[in-house]
């Protein structure tokens, strides 16, 4: 009996390795745990887009895509387990969707030679491709986000915010602390007063923070929240009758989940975005036809058109385009992880390309290069329309303050390079 059990045990561990497929992509999702509400739509969008490519086009360049899903529960240990379990299968790219897991994977993926795409999260200074050879964070990063929020405030005030006050309310973790340094630099440059208000995980109780905001009446509140912190913060803002149009969230604080529970009061809440919203795109017709109606949708299949679903789809689209680029560059349809890296490094997203795949005007145009792995820092502001029940972009894509950010990125990546003895790879 004992030996039987042991054999079964060993066999079960070994069973982790699925059959080798053509183009393997791993979706490290989290459909459980404290951040499940955010993880589900992203993962659904990510998977549905690849399913669409398989069903409609027969994969990319004639090669089918093998999508492996691995549940992390936003837990770093499970993230490591997922990475180790799948990395042997010629995985082309990882999209961890967790800043904590990203930090873990940066040295590991670099050593193993597998590209990481941390779209709008992760380590900001990874934009410097000279130091972070295998890590990409295009099209925008946290520091771009901080700067985009300030630029938006500048625009609203005719370019002068000297003496204005901005409060940053943030998740008290690595993720939430990211924008602080940028905002401090910007406050020096533009002369606004910055107040920092950390909220501890999970953020179920924020009365103290919002009472303080009510007392101090800052002109603007910027939020870096995730999970349950978002709906609670927006609810509290509604409760204290804070003017919602002066309340700006990062892109991770701007999904339907976050505003819906606050009802009509949340109308006018703003959030940054680096891609377009809604479901009014030709590609949605195809997803409906080839994926949903065929019963192949990921998850429950009720997330189509939500902000995070679109973001997951956008991430998948960028990965697919990088695969195409790599296939063209190397003249082979069956690319390796190293070729994928080249594809990502030479990725160019143009309006014509996006229109051709049925996503016209979906994201900003950008071009990746060896030195610049982070795009050009273009983003836009979206606003919640409670009556219509949707976020809508209210600005064009505009660029973040590259002077300030580029210098910070240089500093941070240089210190990382020094700490780890990395020499320039470009």
């Amino acid at each position, binding site marked *: 009996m004992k030996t039987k059990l042991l054999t079964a045990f060993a066999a079960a561990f070994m069973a982790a390795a699925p059959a080798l497929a053509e183009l393997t992509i791993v979706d490290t999702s989290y459909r*459980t745990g404290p951040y499940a509400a955010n993880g589900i739509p992203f993962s659904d969008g990510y998977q549905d887009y690849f399913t669409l490519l398989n069903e409609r086009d027969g994969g990319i360049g004639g090669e089918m895509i093998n999508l492996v899903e691995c549940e992390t529960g936003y837990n770093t240990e499970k993230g490591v387990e997922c990475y180790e*379990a799948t990395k042997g299968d010629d995985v082309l790219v990882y999209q961890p969707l967790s800043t904590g897991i990203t930090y873990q994977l940066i040295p590991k993926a670099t050593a193993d030679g597998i590209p990481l795409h941390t779209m709008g999260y992760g380590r900001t200074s990874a934009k410097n491709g000279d130091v972070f050879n295998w890590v990409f964070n295009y099209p925008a990063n946290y520091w771009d986000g901080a700067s985009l929020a300030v630029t938006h405030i500048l625009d609203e005030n005719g370019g002068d915010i000297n003496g204005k006050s901005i409060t940053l309310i943030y998740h008290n973790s690595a993720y939430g602390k990211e924008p602080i340094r940028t905002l401090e630099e910007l406050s020096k440059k533009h002369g606004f007063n910055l107040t920092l208000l950390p909220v501890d*995980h999970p953020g179920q109780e924020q009365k103290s923070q919002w009472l303080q905001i009510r007392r101090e009446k800052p002109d603007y509140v910027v939020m870096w929240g995730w999970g349950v912190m978002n709906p609670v913060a927006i609810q509290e803002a509604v409760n204290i009758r804070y003017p919602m149009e002066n309340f700006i969230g990062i892109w991770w604080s701007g999904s339907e989940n976050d505003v819906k529970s606050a009802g009509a009061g949340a109308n006018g809440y703003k959030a940054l975005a680096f891609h377009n919203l809604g479901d009014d795109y030709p590609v949605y017709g195809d997803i409906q036809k080839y994926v949903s109606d065929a019963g192949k949708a990921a998850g429950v299949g009720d997330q189509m058109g939500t902000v995070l679903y679109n973001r997951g789809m956008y991430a998948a689209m960028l990965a697919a385009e990088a695969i195409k680029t790599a296939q063209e560059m190397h003249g082979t349809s069956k690319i390796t992880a190293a070729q994928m890296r080249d594809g990502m490094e030479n990725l160019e997203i143009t309006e014509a390309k996006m229109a051709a795949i049925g996503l016209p005007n979906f994201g900003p145009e950008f071009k990746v290069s060896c030195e610049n792995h982070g795009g050009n820092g273009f983003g836009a502001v979206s606003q919640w329309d409670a009556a219509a029940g949707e976020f809508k972009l209210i600005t064009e894509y505009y660029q973040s303050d590259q002077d300030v950010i580029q210098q910070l990125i240089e500093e941070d990546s240089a210190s990382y390079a020094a700490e780890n003895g990395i020499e320039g790879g470009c």
Partner: protein
Amino acid sequence: MFYREAGDFKTSYSEDNQTFPIKFDRWRYYFVLVVAFAVVPFLINDYWVNAVFLPFLIYSIAAIGLNILVGYCGQVSLGTGGFMAVGAYACYKLMTSFPDVNIFFHVLVSGGITALVCVAFGLPSLRIKGFYLAVATLAAQFFLVWLFNKVAWFYNYSASGQINAPERTVFGVPVTGAQTEPWAAYMFCLVFLVISAVIARNLTRGMQGRKWMAIRDMDIAAEIIGVNPLKAKLSAFAVSGFFVGISGALFFAVYLGAVEVGEVFGISKSFIVLFMVIIGGLGSIFGSFAGAAFLVLLPVLLKNVLVGTLGWPTDIAAHLEFMVIGALIVTFLIAEPHGLAQLWRVAKEKLRLWPFPH
């Protein structure tokens, strides 16, 4: 048949009191050691080390540490996550401040620092008992995590507050950082685990261990027969803290490589180590191993069976995983409230008599 004392003659008191009084057990023990040191390192790859062995080894050290406090001395603690964080951050500061010193000593010193912190937070145990103490140690948990998040000195003023383990070597072989070979990381942790287990075993069966157990069974009675509760309780906190600190340092430096305190050393870590101790068996070194194995291996196993073999959707598998673990915990408790170690003991008793009924 083989498993009995008969024919195994003891001629001295120390022989009579050895850890494994039965010959078969002794050989089994040596066999496990040989396999662990000389066979496993040649067989393992990245996946086995990072998903199975490292968490198992490191959690075992933490569970041994906590078992001394909870199982032997009876002081329920829910501050383990915070104390592991002390070990991790101490190790990080030492690694970056004294890059020339061998990491082996960094880990040991981190354990020592954690022991001091643990003693400081153990002081209330002299007045507070039972579940009240458990909840009181949560103060340590939350305070320490907050502290490491708040004070930038601890994470060397990095932008996001993450700490990253730089590469360090032992005998020229890297054991931390991305270039680490799986066997090196495994051996490094294994050495610590074996040392910890041997120390813990010998401490707990000696005078110190008896004092702890007297305190556990009834501290007033223990005081009357001459056990100093102050010394006994605080020494338990110190020893426990030492092991927990080592595990925290290894957890950060060898296993994860990059740590964010709130996420990795949060309250759930405290709970999971306590679960290991209770499921494994209070007051048993073997129980610490069994508990760690149960809670580390079972989720991986379930995941691989449900998702890898049966191909279920990952979310349903993850939910089922929770249900199965919960149900198994309850089943074990109903079948054997004293943990896996007691099941093991009962099995051994039965084996001694086997194949004869009496």
